[in-house]
């Protein structure tokens, strides 16, 4: 972000300022196009109230971002901190397993809660989704445990198992 303006972090300044954005032609051209599209969207929502229900739309539109920023992200960050404190060896495998299984669980959550589907349509969600999810999680965590065991064995030989290898 525009660190051309006063960025006070003197100690980190050299690193921080490298990634600043330049307000060149692309910034203004894409900015104008982008704001035009945003304006079109606002116009569309406001002028089609019968379908868009602007107030309800606004709640869901802003609500999603707020729920992410103020609930989901902090929870994820806290889980990360807890992991760092509690798991001192083979953490990478657990992190991967958590990322993958959290994704699968998040996607399956509405199905597991039984909120979707139509009672009279047997072709929607026709299988045992709970069993399917459990099977997928078993595969993911099985792989994670195997990886962790392998890493812990190698740690003795001081091999950086999950670290960056040179390009």
């Amino acid at each position: 972000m525009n660190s051309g303006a006063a960025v006070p972090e003197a100690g980190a300044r050299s690193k921080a300022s490298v990634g600043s954005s330049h307000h060149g032609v692309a910034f203004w051209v894409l900015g104008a196009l982008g704001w035009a599209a945003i304006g079109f969207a606002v116009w569309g929502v406001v002028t089609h109230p019968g379908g868009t229900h602007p107030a309800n739309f606004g709640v869901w539109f802003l609500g999603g971002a707020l729920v992410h920023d103020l609930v989901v992200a902090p929870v994820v960050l806290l889980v990360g901190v807890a992991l760092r404190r509690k798991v001192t060896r083979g953490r990478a495998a657990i992190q991967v397993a958590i990322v993958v299984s959290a994704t699968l669980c998040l996607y399956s959550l509405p199905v597991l809660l039984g909120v979707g589907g139509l009672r009279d349509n047997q072709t929607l969600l026709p299988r045992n989704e709970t069993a399917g999810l459990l099977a997928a999680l078993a595969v993911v965590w099985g792989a994670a445990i195997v990886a962790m065991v392998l890493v812990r064995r190698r740690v003795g030989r001081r091999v950086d198992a999950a670290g960056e290898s040179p390009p």
Partner: protein
Amino acid sequence: MRPRPVVRQTGPVVTGRSNRLRRGPFREGAFTSDLHVERLGAILGIVLGVTFGVCFLTGLLSHLIQHPPGWFHWPSRPAGVYRVTQGLHVATGIASIPLLLAKLWVVYPHLWRWPPIASVAHALERLSLVPLVGGSVFLLFSGVASIIRWYPWSFSFPQAHYWAAWAAIGGLLVHVGAKAASTGQSLVRRERVPPGPGVPGREERVGLSRRGFLGAVAAAVGALTVATVGQAVRPLSGLSVPAPRDPDIGPQGFPINRTAHEAKVELLAADPEYLLRVEARVAIALALSLEGLRAMSRREATLPIPCVDGWNVSKTWRGVPVAELLARAGADLRGGVLVQSLEPKGAFRESMLDPSHAEDPDTLLALEVEGRPLALDHGFPVRLITPNAPGVMQTKWVGRLEVM
């Protein structure tokens, strides 16, 4: 997307009144992971730019096909294009879920940057994150909810999804304009984090590296894709248990979107007095009974039903070619044909056949599928089958053709 300094702050911190407000997540060093770096944000941003671009274009196409403005004509050939574009729309949308969450996690410290606003341009740039992030979360959530028929809101899903897409793509354009230069730089530069006592776990890394982080995100994308894409890609359907549909499960061996019960056509469709009417701009208005339709020359075509929800099935249909029916009525096809269902109401009770679709010899009023009369839920007595059109436009329980 300024990288968070990885090395702990040791230099003098700015003094002054404004800094007293710098508390909680705003304070220096509040986020300690060394994965909140620009390079990861840039890589995930580029991938998301591609997936969102694909979603936007395929979604816009689907919108144009279903609500064609005067200048837009969607051809009936090749027959399987919509199946691919809509399958991609849903699959890339689902794949974007872990990508978006990972991206937002990487850049999360910027939400709490200090000072919050540095200039007018910066304020506009940050403001554009509202439609970008709000729109992205909205689109992915509403899309996934709608394919399992979960509507926890009051607005119309297709309309809200459509307008939210414009907001998100607008926010994306502003964001790309603001970040293109720094993204390019961060990809060229191979920034190395110096090892040192200030970086926890760096000397003997036990947690994910940057590369490992990207690998975890890729694994999540892969797992979620395998879990869902089977609804469109048949060989994977056995693995895709959480997918909303199995292309082999349903009456006569394939799924249904809207049941006869839901459409309230059970009595109307089973009525022995059923007549198919061909009316409006015709030389001879037709009214054909089911027997009359069966007596006409029939044609067979193997065509897909690609649902807007992302699943599709290809079946062999047999029925009366619409073009032949219209020729018998002496209709002029140039204005298109409105195909109306027996359904008393609903947004999908009728569909407009573009002239290219009306003239296509494989556009049928199907009486049979795979050699057997259509099941009630698949559109008995007749349903429209036309190449390269969304399932919702392949109207079931057809009662009337109105030549425009």
